[in-house]
């Protein structure tokens, strides 16, 4: 690092240059880039831009993308959540497979779901017992919905066939038959049960 290096170009590497470049980069990358993209995104996709909210009779009842807690018998229930479905404290359980606390949580849930739905523990789909990564997974598998169909029908005093029909209608398949898994949006199917979502 001798001063005599003919190509050391110390002028280009001065502290003043670094300060000026840093400030310009902060304004360009941290200011202009997000501002332009956010503005374009808001214009092109206004519904998505503000969290994909579902509005029923002028009231926001939730977001298509955010699961909610359900405990009443007349609703489909979602997956276990390590965050109690609070989007400000999102997170998974982070339990390792070897952690005894995971085993006891599943044992407890498996027992109560088996009783509630009147099925054997080994026929409960895995996703209904496994906590999601986000803690606000809006979906369950169609199998997990079918397990709950009889209880929902009984609580609402409607035929099971009608509930199963609704499950079939609300089951989304993989995109293009390739990307992603089959799934049911719990909030949307529950809104449909309440007659608050129009069928298309």
């Amino acid at each position, binding site marked *: 690092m001798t001063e005599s290096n003919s190509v050391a170009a110390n002028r280009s590497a001065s502290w003043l240059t*670094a300060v000026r470049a840093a400030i310009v980069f*902060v304004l360009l990358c941290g200011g202009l880039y997000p501002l332009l993209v956010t503005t374009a*995104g808001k214009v092109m996709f206004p519904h998505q831009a503000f969290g994909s909210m579902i509005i029923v009779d002028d009231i926001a009842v939730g977001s298509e993308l955010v699961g909610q807690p359900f405990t009443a018998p007349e609703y489909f229930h979602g997956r276990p959540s390590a965050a109690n479905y609070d989007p400000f404290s999102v997170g998974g359980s982070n339990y390792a497979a*070897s952690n005894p606390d995971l085993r006891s949580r599943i044992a407890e849930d498996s027992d109560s779901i088996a009783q509630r739905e009147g099925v054997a523990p080994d026929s409960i789909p895995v996703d209904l017992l496994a906590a999601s990564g986000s803690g606000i997974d809006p979906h369950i598998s169609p199998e997990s919905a079918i397990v709950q169909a009889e209880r929902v029908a009984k609580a609402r005093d409607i035929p099971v066939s009608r509930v199963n029909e609704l499950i079939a209608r609300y089951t989304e398949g993989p995109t293009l038959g390739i990307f*992603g898994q089959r799934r049911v949006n719990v909030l949307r199917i*529950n809104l449909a049960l309440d007659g608050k979502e129009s069928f298309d």
Partner: protein
Amino acid sequence: MNEVIIIYAVTLLLAWPLGKYIAGVFNGGKGTAGAVFLPVESGLYRLFGVDPSQPMSWQGYGKALLKLHLVLVLIIFGLLMAQGLLFLNPDGIGGMSWDLALHTAVSFLTNTNQQHYSGQAQLSYLAHTFGIVTLQVVTPAAGMAALVAIVRTLLGRSDKKSQPSSDGTVSVGNFYEDITRAVVRVMLPVAAVVALIIASQGVPNSYEGARTAIPLDQTAGMTEQNIPIGPVAPMVAIKQVGTNGGGWYGPNSSVPLENPTPVSNFVQTVSLVLIPAALVFALGFMTGRRRLAMVVMGVMVVMSVSLTSVAIWSENQPNAAFSGLAAEGPNLEGKEVRFGASATALWGSWTTQTSNGSVNGMHDSFNPIGGMIPMIDMFINVTFGGIGVGLIGFLLFLLLAAFLGSLMIGRAPEIAGKALETREMKLVCIALLIQPLLILGFSAITVAFPALTGNSNPGFHGISQVIYEYTSAFANNGSGFEGLGDDSVWWNVTCAVNLALGRFIPILAPLAVAASLAAKRSAPEGRGSLSIDTPTFGLMTLAVIVMFTLLSFMPVLILGPIAEALALMS
């Protein structure tokens, strides 16, 4: 399965033309793109006060890089401490503690994005955009600049830029020209395209504060649900394409607001590997050594596919804790229904092969073998690797393989016609050996004092949590076994040390090696010299990488994930 194969194919097919484009950006940078971008760039040079045609020695280049980084880290550190007092903070979020702000600033400065905080609750919009997004654009560009400087000097066509001057000093290029082109022509355009695609899928785009909903089942105990939004899409896009990894929401791309659909998951997965793979092709286009680029790509793809296959197999096995209590099925603890086990395992493997570190499921809850793959990926860290630094790391292994290979065929060690001597090999060894030294050293100290670890899981997995955290820090990855209670002074400070050394030594040492080699008289590459662009040499390099990784890290893998897997089997 089809999903995984298609994602691999699409990524490599897109990386080819992007690599060609990137090579053009740094080989003169004229043409159609030049007409658009050159005026922007000269405007920026005027604002910086630099003359981009001025060549720099490796020391000058390194100093310019370090100075810019030091100024940036001070700005961001201040921003994080003071965010509570500043504007663009609709949700009223307070400032960070000094140690958390230090760790966060260094973590993003080093392109790591290891997070000991949860963004939606602990960062204001000002800190998220001006602080975090700035570093997410600039740091991959800095990595790319360093790579270009090294490749230009080590393997470049003999042009005036890499010729020694009269006093023997070698120019490696101009740092500000390289980084500006990487920002303006590569990082920002690619990120903007990805941002708009994922915005269409539901990623929020707004400077307004959180939304409030009245949940449907009021008997479930939640009267109001507050949903954090923000200018999320631009950040998530650059997080994915810039091998950054730090997300808006704590659990990253597992959160449906950050990664809403299988389509957004597809785009974000491709984005993990896109630019790192494109740079390998760019290496071929820049230097005219296309066969060498194909050999490098071949080795990387072999490593990637074999490790990813193991992860996908493992996550499709049932989680041992569910046995007898649920129907047979893959391990879905910590995973999202819309993605499923295979797409999550693919992401987990790619994000650690590229030094990205974003996640779409919780690695802590992977099955033991599935959780071991990300650790191996990060030990290797050159399967694609971080933008710029991944390929720089691969070139180090290439030098080591050339050194050993030359000795094996009984010749004086050389690469590209330049003699590999003590000085170069010492630098290569320092750059390689500091990795096991730091990871194993810090892990040993931390495990020896259980009060420091902050483990959330007992037994062998507790050891894995500690090793994972330091490995992730040194590899500048940023993913974690996130149950770990890592927001403590011990974790924040020791990780910051690993982050900084894991970033700057692997950049500066190879830069010095390249300059040192370029200053030597070149022997013509003849029939007797070692060819580095053959499949045989690729195999040699692969063997060196595997041996180095196994010798360094096999013992800790046995203590952690392998012991856990065996214990669960019995």
